[in-house]
């Protein structure tokens, strides 16, 4: 491989600083004492700088509307919007979703008898939300998930349903940006 042909954007030697080698270090740099003093100065000034960290369990973080928290099923007028089309289960790269559909008297005609998301498998990619043709599964703002056993981590319909009011921010964001 030859050197690539230089174009107008080729390197101009003066636009990058030269390397400081050992021989370029001054006497003061070599004896190292100024470096130590400087190091102490940095440590001390750091005390008076604003803190960057967050004291997590006490100080909570509010996610922005674009945040992809755990996926939930949208509940409207007491029932889920889902029509059990199975598209979310198809697209899920982690194979986390299981849907079993059946017929209902309601206008939507079909509903999921069983809807499970294995939260140990879910990778919060948001593909299910993107694929769903009914706006029935969306990513919520919840990010705190703890389980004490593997069975706990399989969320059924009762744990997944969330009322549409609670998801207002996210739904608005999706309508605007997707």
């Amino acid at each position, binding site marked *: *491989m030859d*050197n*690539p042909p*230089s*174009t107008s*954007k*080729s*390197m*101009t030697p003066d*636009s*990058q*600083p030269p*390397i*400081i*080698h*050992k021989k370029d*270090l001054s006497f003061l*740099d*070599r004896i*190292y004492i100024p*470096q130590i003093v*400087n*190091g102490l100065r*940095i440590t001390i000034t750091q005390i008076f700088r604003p803190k*960057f960290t967050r004291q997590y369990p006490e100080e909570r973080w509010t*996610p*922005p509307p*674009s*945040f*992809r928290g755990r996926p939930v099923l949208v509940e409207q007028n007491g029932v889920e919007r889902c029509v059990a089309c199975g*598209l979310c289960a*198809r*697209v899920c*790269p*982690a194979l986390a979703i299981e849907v079993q559909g059946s017929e209902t008297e309601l206008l939507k005609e079909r509903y999921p008898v069983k809807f499970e998301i294995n939260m140990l498998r879910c*990778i*919060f*990619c*948001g*593909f299910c939300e*993107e*694929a769903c*043709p*009914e*706006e029935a599964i969306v*990513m919520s703002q919840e990010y705190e998930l703890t389980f004490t056993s593997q069975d706990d981590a399989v969320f059924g319909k009762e744990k997944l349903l969330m009322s549409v009011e609670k998801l207002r921010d996210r739904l608005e964001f*999706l*309508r605007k*940006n*997707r």
Partner: protein
Amino acid sequence: MGSDGTAAKQKILRALENADTNVSFDDVLEHDMVLNMGPQHPATHGVLRLLLRLDGETIVSAVPDLGYLHRGYEKIAENCTFHEFIPHTDRLDYLSPLANNVAYVLAVEKLAGIEATRRTQYIRVICAELARLASHLVWLGTMAMDVGAVTVLLWGFREREKIQDIWDVLTGVRFTTSFTRIGGLAQDLTPECSAMVTSFLDQFADNLNECEKILVRNRIFVERCEGIGVITKDQALQYGITGPILRACGVEHDLRRDAPYLVYPELDFHVPVYHDCDVLARFYVRVQEMKESVKILRQALAKLPEGPVNAGDPKKVLPKKEHTYGRMEELIHDFMIINFGINPPIGEIYHAVEGSKGELGFYIVSHGEGHPWRLKIRSPSFVNLQPLPVMMKGGMISDVVAIIGSIDPVMGEADK
């Protein structure tokens, strides 16, 4: 498993013995020893295992042993639709997930003959450069820590944290972004988000200078980096090294400029090149690259055009969500794309981008189905790790960490 394990062991031992030395390997009384570094050693940046043959403190030979993080991504890809594979690319070079997302969809788009809109191309440049910054910041911190400067580690991570806050707003998560889509993006860049990027850039230059200042005239840092891990320009080319390591060997090679993709030709930036071939030169290249990335980001934000994000190709690009809810045609396309994939034409393509570590390429063979028939990932970390024995030979044991730090390998990408 047993016999395979023995064969692998034999191979490693032979490689160690082949090094030109007259000290015999079997004689325990010789002061020659084999040191096993990793896979859990903190200085090997992930699960890289190194076998070092030492004469006193001098390295006689070194053999890297890879594969501890192998997850079989190339094989997994053959069983996913092109769309489903996007989250897997996050987990290759996990320090710059956004850049991998961009590289992968560019390859698929080339295969399927889709052209992303101008706005999307600009946003993708912003993504790729933010990812480069984030990755280089981790490198800066870890490499400085490897040679003893812990302060810079914390400063580097502080800056990276700010980038991840931007990703949080831009993509919805901090780390595993899965942001790009074939023919577009998961969502648009909001004005608040571009304001966040601008305010980050405004303070970043000072903070980077602070990190740089604390290191460049520091005697310990300079002495530990200068003349270490040398690999000549010819050797570097022979091994196929790319990225900052190659540019530290005096080869002016940057795919953003030499094989332009996205809108890089419209942006003005400079490719830093140094000729020292050692760890110190790699440090300078990467620090200068960060400054160039800042320049690119500012230009891209200023030039960001208005317009749609997703390309208008209904058979290959997911429709707008509100149309899926109301219109039959879009609903059908939604089902078809998700269920059966985008079915690109039969053929094979290779597309590479300049990732933060070097040339990140995807080679895809398509048989006209919704999933790739074969997908090969040309990961820069894997290739850049190959010349480790050359760089280490004759060095001291304390140089090992500096050399690995300067290569900046990410094992998620090297082992795939």
